[in-house]
């Protein structure tokens, strides 16, 4: 039971924030793009930076997804070679 619950917490800690990080990255990219369009260039470039920001945001989301998948594997590999 103790082993199960520590494993559970480890899994929750490592993978429980995948969804939120993904969404946060997309929204930050989109928000940055909208800010550049509307406030920095005063709407003269209107849809373009929004789309570029959205694309970068989605890219960042996938990148953080891969990071999350890679990091715990590397950590457990360092810790115990058998497991």
């Amino acid at each position: 039971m103790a082993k199960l619950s520590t494993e559970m917490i480890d899994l929750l800690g490592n993978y429980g924030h995948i969804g939120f990080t993904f969404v946060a990255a997309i929204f930050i990219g989109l928000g940055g793009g909208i800010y550049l369009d509307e406030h920095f260039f005063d709407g003269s470039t209107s849809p373009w930076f929004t789309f570029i920001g959205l694309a970068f945001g989605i890219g960042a989301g996938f990148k953080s997804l891969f990071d999350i998948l890679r990091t715990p594997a590397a950590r457990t590999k360092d810790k115990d070679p058998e497991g």
Partner: protein
Amino acid sequence: MEHPILFISIILEKLGLPIPHGPIGNTLLEKLCEPYMTYTWFVMIFLVVVGKLTLSNIEMIPGKGQNFWELLIGGMYDFFNDNMGSELTEKLFPMIATFALYIAVGNLIGLIPGFMSPTSSINTTLALTIIVWITHHIIGLRAHGLGYIKHFLGPIPVLIPLMLPIELISNVARLLSLSIRLFGNIMAKETLLGILFMLAGAYFAPLPIMLLGVLVSLVQAMVFVLLTVVYFGQSNEHAH
């Protein structure tokens, strides 16, 4: 959502201090008397007093109180040691352990009727997260100097214009996701408990949610600390 009963707020109101009726007060005194501020002070006083009571005389053969703290602090120390190396643990153990204790107690205190979790306010969680976020950049800058920027440039020099914004966005996303996850989970627990108390408190309807609330509180405190440790470890190690 307004909490039904917050006993510190009631006491302060009896003392003649202004209690804000919205989430945020107008004047400085009202801001200081917001429930999440007063309950933050309450959690801090609670931790200090409990520490003082249980650890006032440290002995070679530990009693009940000292045993508990030795188990807890020792477990956390080993966990940090495994995940971010002994050097960083020596430096940063007090900070992260304080965060862990504060978040765990702050989450759990909201389960008692009349109390509120200070972590169910975005101000508290964002403050904690900004400290963690700035600290992990400082760790990176101190460990690598200007070479820390290599963390944000990706593996191949040709891809720098593509990778730099992506890395920066995913780094800022840490700030958002770390704060909003803790805030969202705890606020959801608090709101659900409040609604169930009002709807069917006489029939013990909130009891199962309270059970889940214990789990959520501990797991969220664990997750916050685990991610803090992982970020610190990442910014300390070499870029890929």
